[in-house]
């Protein structure tokens, strides 16, 4: 076992990462860390945390509703067919290197609109909130 204090910072995944509040590049709240992706290198046997996963299906999956979770994720993937990205891009997966500060909140170098956690926000906005007068202005002084 390597000496944990020798290099790099030490984190505990469930303690320091899971369920933390996420913020996008503009400081907007954009979901919690619902799960983490772990990738294992076959040759060296080393494992890495490679991505933050977040979105409705992801949370269901984590809470033991495996099939429901995967179905939700798949549905989300089909509905949002990565229009703005050339490479295949999963809206529930934020590569870990895009996580800037890790503290009481985790700041991501991502835009909310690229995240699955924001889809229902957009839906309620276009279908409900934007039909109610006064939705765009701040409250009166």
């Amino acid at each position: 076992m390597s000496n944990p204090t020798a290099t790099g910072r030490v984190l505990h995944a469930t303690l320091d990462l899971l369920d933390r509040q996420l913020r996008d590049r503009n400081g907007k709240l954009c979901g919690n860390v619902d799960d983490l992706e772990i990738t294992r290198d076959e040759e060296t046997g080393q494992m890495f945390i490679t991505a933050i996963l977040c979105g409705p299906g992801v949370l269901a999956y984590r809470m033991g509703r495996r099939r429901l979770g995967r179905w939700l994720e798949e549905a989300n993937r089909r509905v949002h067919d990565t229009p703005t990205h050339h490479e295949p891009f999963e809206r529930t997966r934020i590569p870990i290197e895009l996580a800037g500060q890790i503290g009481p909140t985790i700041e991501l170098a991502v835009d909310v609109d690229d995240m699955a956690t924001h889809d229902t926000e957009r839906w309620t906005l276009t279908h409900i909130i934007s039909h109610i007068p006064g939705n765009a202005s701040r409250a009166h002084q």
Partner: protein
Amino acid sequence: MKKVLGVALGVLTAIGGFVDMGDLVANAETGARFDMNLAWVVIVGVVGIIVYAEMAGRVAALCGRPVFDLVRERLGPRFGLANLLASFFINMLTLTAEIAGVALSLSLVSSVNYLFLIPFVALLVWLVCWRMKFETMERVFGLLGLCLLVFAVTVWKIGPDWNHLFSDATHPHVPHSETVFTYAYFGIALFGAAMTPYEVFFFSSGAVEDGWTRKDLGENKINVLIGFPLGAALSLAIMACTHLLLAPRNISVDQLSQVALPVASVVGRLGLAIVIIGIFAATFGAALETSLSAGYIVAQYLGWPWGKRGAPRTASRFHVVILMAIIGATLFGLTGVDPVKVTEYSIVLSAAALPLTYFPILVIANDPRYVGPEHTNGRFLNALASVYLVILLLVAIATIPLMIITKGGS
């Protein structure tokens, strides 16, 4: 000077905001049924809310994280979800009770049946959630709530034997006409009314909405340490009123209008007008707090954008949850359930759910990664908070059995 004014305003708001439908009903009922024998519970309850609200406010000011965010982080998604469902359910009962309370207070000046007024009240509540500035909302209803001070005036005008009243309150016993079980049940109701979880949901989320930082820690302390005890004094005044005026006549309180009766009979027409304004403001303010809390807890559990600081379109799911909660409570209220009964159940169940919410607050307030090493709880505070955690657990365990044994306190 401006700063002092701000702090004073905050304290007054805290006093007026402390009392809601739950406190009105629980204190008036126990005063009429148990005289001052349960007054000590109000004190125990207010110390508890002071301890935990201060922690929640401090955590919110230092790391910008409101309570329900922490609930999920510390308890995990599963326990967190259980807590969310329980809290949301109780919050709906409370919201129903508060909306009905507003409608009842309006019916006392208009003689329109309160059921007809419920939709109108709900619309008003929603409009304020939708349009009014957070600070204005807090201040207006908190300050109007100060009208409830007329209860204290009433007690003073009755001119009781103060020594007697005090010794009654400090030497509690179970009255002959009651059992240990009903005594304990109403004790829990009073405790739940003082420590209702939505108060800390709202308080901590409000601190984030008001943009509190390290600089506001002092104001947090003052609000909590002065505002809440004075709010509790108000609760005791209500209890004393019904104890002095209704209990000797064998009147038991089962309607909101009876809560105002001692004031009318002692202070007169003006007093009645003031107390009804006070009841209106207290229940309306609490209806706002519970509507917003519904949105806060769901949004914070799921990490959605929340808050009424920005335009509604910047937190659309949050506003949808609020809208749904108000509609749900309205429909429930319109079924004609007895508002006083709903209030009783909401505060008693609140008491049962308390540990789930207060435990994570206590842990986080000791976590240097959140509040910084210099702002973690001191020894004394921790000792006190630990004692309360034990009380909360005992209360939570006892609540449901007592509810069944006493058949809801009857």
